[in-house]
């Protein structure tokens, strides 16, 4: 065994994140770690790499017990890790991020040129066009993720750990990553791979370990479990399969919101878009194509500098998010850590925050009402938290996403913009969120969904807008909404006929 744990236990106040977990990683295998949000996957790897100190249990590296006190020690024995959220430093250059801690030196001084060459070499093979001298923060989340992977791969002499590395990557980049992983596996590394995309799990993994509520449930060869069994192992029950049957209520004609020539210089070309009441509009495109920018413009987070927005009552004021919220808009952003959650506030406070902001400071929501709302949404969205008073920053990623959804649902908006709402969310919650979208749409809410998962878009959208190079290049409706057509629209060099750009 390359790396194994015996009876690993880790407790946080109010939560037992790991409960006697035993786990083995062999050399030359890709071992997927699976489980619902909050199952303890990230906690397990953080204990393995010394980022957390375990309460009890053993960690063995090649049969020898190790006691990593810091990630530095883990790196020293050849464990490279990509942690769940992009964990590099945006203020350092790409090269500095890649080489931090092992910069080439002469007489104790860093040699910048050699450092840049080394960084470029580390990035070769990922098909990235970046200037390693630029600050990392200049690049998109996807680029940052790849840089993080490149760094971890470089550091991984023996073990590579990837905690949801693909959440913000598109298909092409995932393919490239998998090529790298296969290559490393062939060279005898042990690789731990965490993902909520079961397709990817089946594509790359040799074995699977399933955690639930901090406990080890099963370890199987990937070939021995089928998808349904796997999901049942993860959830502890079968997945209700009603989301697959697509029966959407027809969109309503009145109450549409019309964007005409809306745009912002340098961010997104002016576009026209009409969102009907009770309609789900999907938005597809490659990373960096301008989907988030579209959403920000539509929510007033990046105010428009052209065009008009109207509804049946006349012009809609979208000067800033506050105005947009007053007009009944809502926006669950892509980067929940920096744009979404208020980490130190409790789940309850995070849920009521948008509603409270809209009511104004002078009319506080009564405590009892707050508790009722929080409990209600915790139950409805199945948010895994010991209680409503836990700081939201301590929840697992998927549950944080649900809290943000709850925050916006609490304001009962008429137009809800969801930017990558299911990123990092487990299969169970994924299905729940899709069901939720159907529910609120049935009540007449309009929704714009931005997602890199085309299956998901196809499953929920009435209509899909395809974005490329910061322009809305085409619009697919009705039976045209299939993964195939979307992929083609994204890839095609010229605009499809009937494009609404």
């Amino acid at each position, binding site marked *: 065994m390359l790396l194994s744990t015996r009876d690993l236990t880790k407790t946080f106040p109010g939560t037992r994140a790991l409960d006697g977990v035993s786990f083995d990683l062999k050399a030359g295998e890709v071992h997927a770690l699976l489980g619902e949000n909050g199952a303890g996957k990230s906690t397990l790897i953080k204990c393995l790499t010394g*980022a957390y100190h375990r309460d009890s249990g053993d960690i063995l590296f090649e049969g020898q017990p190790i006691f990593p006190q*810091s*990630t*530095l020690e883990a*790196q020293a024995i050849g464990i490279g*890790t990509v*942690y769940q959220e992009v*964990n*590099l*430093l*945006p*203020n*350092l*250059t790409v090269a*500095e*991020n890649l080489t*931090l*801690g092992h*910069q080439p*030196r002469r007489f*104790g*001084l*860093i040699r*910048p040129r050699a450092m840049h060459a080394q960084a470029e070499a580390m990035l070769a093979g990922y098909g990235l066009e970046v200037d390693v*001298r*630029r*600050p990392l923060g*200049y690049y998109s989340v996807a680029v940052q993720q790849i840089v993080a992977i490149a*760094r971890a791969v470089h550091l991984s002499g023996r073990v590579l750990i990837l905690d949801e590395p693909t959440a913000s990557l598109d298909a092409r980049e995932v393919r490239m990553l998998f090529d790298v992983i296969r290559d490393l596996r062939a060279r005898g590394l042990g690789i731990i791979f965490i993902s909520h995309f079961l397709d990817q799990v089946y594509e790359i993994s040799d074995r699977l370990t399933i955690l639930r509520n901090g406990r080890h449930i099963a370890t199987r060869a990937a070939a021995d479990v089928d998808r349904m069994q796997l999901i049942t192992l993860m959830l502890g029950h079968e997945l209700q399969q009603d989301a697959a049957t697509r029966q959407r209520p027809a969109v309503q004609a009145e109450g549409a919101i019309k964007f005409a020539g809306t745009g912002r210089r340098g961010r997104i070309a002016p576009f026209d878009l009409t969102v009907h009441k009770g309609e789900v509009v999907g938005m597809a495109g490659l990373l960096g194509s301008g989907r988030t920018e579209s959403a920000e413009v539509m929510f007033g987070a990046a105010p428009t500098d052209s065009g008009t927005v109207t509804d049946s009552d006349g012009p809609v004021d979208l000067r800033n998010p506050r105005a947009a919220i007053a007009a009944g808009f809502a926006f669950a952003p892509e980067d929940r850590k920096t744009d979404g959650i208020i980490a130190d506030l409790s789940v309850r406070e995070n849920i009521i925050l948008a509603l409270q902001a809209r009511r104004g400071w002078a009319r506080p929501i009564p405590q009892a009402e707050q508790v009722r709302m929080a409990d209600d949404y915790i139950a409805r969205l199945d948010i895994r938290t010991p209680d409503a008073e836990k700081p939201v920053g301590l929840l697992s990623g998927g549950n944080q996403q649900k809290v943000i959804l709850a925050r916006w649902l609490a304001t009962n908006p008429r137009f809800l913009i969801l930017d990558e709402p299911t990123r990092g969310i487990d299969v169970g919650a994924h299905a729940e969120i899709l069901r939720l979208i159907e529910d609120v749409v049935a009540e007449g809410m309009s929704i714009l969904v931005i997602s890199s998962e085309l299956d998901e878009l196809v499953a929920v959208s009435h209509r899909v807008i395809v974005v490329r190079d910061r322009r809305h290049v085409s619009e697919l409706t009705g039976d045209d909404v299939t993964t195939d057509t979307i992929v083609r629209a994204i890839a095609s060099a010229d605009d499809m006929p009937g494009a609404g750009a």
Partner: protein
Amino acid sequence: MSIRALPLYATIAIFLLAYLICYIQFPAMLSTRVIGNLLTDNAYLGIVAVGMTVVIISGGIDLSVGSVIAFSGVFIAVVLRETDMHPMLAFALLLAITTAFGAAMGGMIHLLAMPPFIVTLAGMFLARGAAYMLSIDSVPIVDPFYEMMQRAYYLMPGRGRLTLLGMIMVAAVVIGMIVLHRTRFGTNVYALGGGEATARLMGVAVGRTTVAVYAFSGFMAGLAGIVFSVYTSAGYPLATVGVELSAIAAVVIGGTLLTGGNGYMFGTLIGVLTMGLIQTYIVFDGSLSSWWTKIVIGALLLMFILLQKGLLRLRVSP
């Protein structure tokens, strides 16, 4: 690289512009005398600002430096008065003390997870208090070695003096540049300023770096104390009150963000010279009452910062 350096360019441009304006009003401002004075008079500030830059880039702040300078002067003066130690030995002893003092503050910040602002504020009280306990009176330093250091200057054409003290400051800046931009420690400092948790996950030895950062600042404050004691050939427990704020202002004018993770050592030198320029301009003008002096310093400070922000916005937006 160039994007990160924009604030630095803006700072340099504003400084040159300001100098030009001063020159037009008072041609004597461009004499070697004034330039020499600018370096010498701000030597202690420049040195302490080098340490402060490192601290601020690491995401911290060091309020103790002004008191440490005062302590250093008193310590050296008392040691030289009471013993017949050679000044160089006293310097070494002092630098060991101030470095250890800085390291102790860094250790507290790291081990007890206490905010730097507060730890160094306590350090500021402690160092000043220690200076009082050594002597409440100002203690003159009479020592041939000191006289030698004071007289060590190169007379530039135009009777300007390029002094040893000024050169020590320039050397400190150069060392600071090398440490910050060309060592692993320097990159770790930037990493720490970018985000401590992330830096830790990336394998930066956060504790060691924090201690080293404040030790470096303590060392520089000690060095500034030595320079200051040469400058005034005395130790005075009431000296350099509020210098920490001047140093912070100089670092900020130099384009370093107080939030940490961004900035350049060279910018700090420009910031220090800018502060010196403001001071010189006010003296040359000579018509400001005590209160207008304060208001004008504040207003010029504000102007520099707003200009810098404006320039950056202009450059970034298109």
